[in-house]
């Protein structure tokens, strides 16, 4: 593994090792570029993972303080945990379920397609599906996505079979085990899925793609990756001309160090990335870095979600096998006659018993909920993933009243549901329950959204610098050697799980950075 000097001004510093940062680092290293990858979390290996909800949560999750506000249920049920994302090498690719879906063409043109919806800050992406399609193809190949590149689909588990049966009874057509970045057969040095069932707790078989054991070791093998785990970036620095010059970070021993850089790429997920830009304010940039538009932290999106858990007369054992075991895609199109803009996916979900007790009906107690929890093995689950509307005041701000262990203000996550989100969620709850009912459900729960796993939009892409933070390459409008490389770039959320798009954008961004470096433009 490479070790670069703190004063080496020729390196690219990447902050965060998940889908965006981990992929970008490898792509740059493969092109001969030196990368210092700073990750706040520890490095674990597959053998360290545990099949236990609570232990794995404590091991992998970002549990540093955050606060929340707004009308969303999460602020009431889990005020200190607005998001469920990771702090570990591999980032949230250790925790994700593996759904790898392309966005639809119209979703890149959300403002044009949906019109001017009151209260929203809708905008078209500065790129199209055609622009991204070649990179989606590269991402699918890299990640080994099922039902692409001749890779067979995964077999459906019990939870899927229940959903599929109900869906077909209702006449849904686009029902499958989906496009999953989980090996259905050996590929890329990794074995096939063993249907272990603890996808969220770190895949013990390595069948699920994670940068931890794909991109990162491949980058290390080039001799050009200097990965520093347990190294939390506190501030991005800049020179007198305003170009970024490096980062200040705390290493695993608590030492405060400065790493010089030619380019800095921020990929700390959509809460910490804007927080870092805001915490990097200076005399020259009093509102934070790359924030001349005032858009850093704004337009926070987290998908319109919610879950339907239903109880059946006979056992289902939903926890056996992959968590996201299949999908209904019939509701994903934009059909405004349903009473809302955009669409949603219905995907299976399964949680372990401890998580079900927490999320089935947050805050509930008493005989009725205990009886339902007691019927755990008779339960099936469906998760709603729908497009939510960007709103300027749904945003990440610095909470000066709460400081982290380094004395920096923590992120406050504010989110109000838009009427479009509410209408979509209600529709999806009804359809999800109908699917389960058609398969014989005797009771359904409409579980509210839990802490956000999909976080998007807080450094959004825009053609016009006054509408967003980055251009179509993820390069900040204000500072040309500062990039954003995670889901915070998303202009809109679309209805699909975000990871494939984050990876595709990272591959594309690496091409651009290499080209610009080659031309000495940055």
């Amino acid at each position, binding site marked *: 593994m490479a070790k670069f000097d703190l004063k080496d001004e020729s390196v690219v510093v990447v902050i965060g090792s998940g889908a965006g940062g981990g992929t970008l680092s490898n792509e740059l290293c493969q092109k001969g570029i030196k990368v210092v990858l700073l990750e706040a979390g520890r490095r674990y290996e597959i053998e360290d*993972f*545990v*099949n*236990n*909800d*609570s232990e794995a949560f404590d091991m992998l999750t970002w549990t540093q303080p955050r606060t929340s506000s707004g009308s969303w249920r999460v602020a009431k049920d889990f005020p200190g945990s607005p998001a469920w994302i990771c702090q570990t090498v591999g980032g949230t690719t250790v925790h994700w379920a593996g759904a790898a879906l392309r966005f639809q063409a119209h979703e890149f043109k959300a403002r044009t397609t949906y019109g001017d919806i009151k209260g929203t800050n809708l905008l078209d992406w500065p790129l199209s599906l055609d622009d991204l399609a070649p990179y989606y193809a590269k991402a699918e190949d890299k990640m080994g996505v099922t039902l692409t590149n001749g890779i067979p689909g995964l*077999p*459906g*588990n*019990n939870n899927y*079979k*229940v959903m*599929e*049966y109900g869906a*077909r*009874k209702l006449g849904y057509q686009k029902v499958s085990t989906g496009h999953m970045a989980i090996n259905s057969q050996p590929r890329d040095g990794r074995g096939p*899925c*063993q*249907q*272990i*069932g*603890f996808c969220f707790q770190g895949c*013990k*078989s390595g069948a699920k793609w994670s940068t931890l054991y794909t991109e990162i070791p491949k980058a290390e093998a080039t001799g050009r990756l200097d990965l520093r785990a347990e190294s939390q970036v506190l501030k991005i620095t800049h020179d007198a001309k305003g170009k970024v010059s490096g980062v200040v970070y705390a290493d695993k021993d608590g030492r405060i160090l400065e790493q010089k850089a030619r380019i800095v790429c921020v990929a700390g997920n959509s809460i910490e990335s804007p927080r870092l830009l805001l915490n990097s304010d200076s005399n020259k940039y009093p509102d934070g870095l790359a924030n001349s538009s005032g858009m850093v932290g704004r337009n926070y999106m987290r998908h319109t979600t919610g879950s339907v858990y239903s109880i059946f007369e*006979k*056992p*289902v*054992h939903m*926890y*056996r*096998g992959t968590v996201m075991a299949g999908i209904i895609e019939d509701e994903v199109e934009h059909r405004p006659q349903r009473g809302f803009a955009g669409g949603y996916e219905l995907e299976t979900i399964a949680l*372990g*018993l*401890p998580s*079900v*007790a*927490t999320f089935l009906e947050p*805050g509930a*107690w*008493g*005989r009725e*909920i*205990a009886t339902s*929890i*007691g019927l*755990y*093995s008779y339960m099936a689950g469906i998760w709603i993933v729908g497009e939510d509307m960007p709103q300027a005041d749904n945003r990440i701000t610095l909470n000066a009243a709460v400081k982290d262990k380094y004395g920096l203000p923590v992120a406050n996550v504010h989110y109000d549901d838009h009427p479009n989100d509410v209408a979509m969620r209600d529709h999806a709850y009804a359809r999800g329950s109908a699917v389960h009912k058609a*398969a*014989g459900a005797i009771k359904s729960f409409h579980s509210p959204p839990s802490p956000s796993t999909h976080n998007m939009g807080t450094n959004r892409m825009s053609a016009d610098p006054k509408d967003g933070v980055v251009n179509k390459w993820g390069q900040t409008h204000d500072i040309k050697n500062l990039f954003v490389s995670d889901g915070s770039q998303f202009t809109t959320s679309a209805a699909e799980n975000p990871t494939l798009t984050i990876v595709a954008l990272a591959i594309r961004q690496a091409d651009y950075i290499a080209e610009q470096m080659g031309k000495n433009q940055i």
Partner: protein
Amino acid sequence: MFAKLDRRRFLRTSAVAVAGTAVAGSEFLAAPDGAWAMTVTTLGKAAAATLIRMARDLFPHDSIGDTAYAKVVEKLDRRAGADQQLAGLLKDGVTALDAAAKEGYAAASEARRIAILKSMETTPFFQTVRVAMAKDFYNDEAVWKALGYEGSSAEFGGYLHRGFDDIDWLPRI
């Protein structure tokens, strides 16, 4: 019912039990039939017995014995030993629970106990015990077994050959 018997038994056995423990201030709490036993060091056995009753009222599973509920209380007691604020919160909470029924919380009828809990729902005491139950009770392997959750599976090769798709009651499509 159980708690009343329990308390009578404590009176009979506590001298022996306390004599048998080396740690000053720690008390021994056991089921009347000897099915389970726990040690409380901070909250006191009467408070622990009330909390066990409360724990069961929060998430009653008639097929699960008191051991699993007692374990949650035991863990709360350990935490309270290292956290004075938590100890105060729990002790005051139990006092309030007992004061709400003239015969004491544990001896009150189920309907009365539920009404008492309902009236305390928004208090930090109630929330602390509820969250501890949701988090610790349902993370107990004995509870998993009772409710049909199989837990860790990787060491058994996952469910690929152990029934991930064994559902047999759905009609053919």
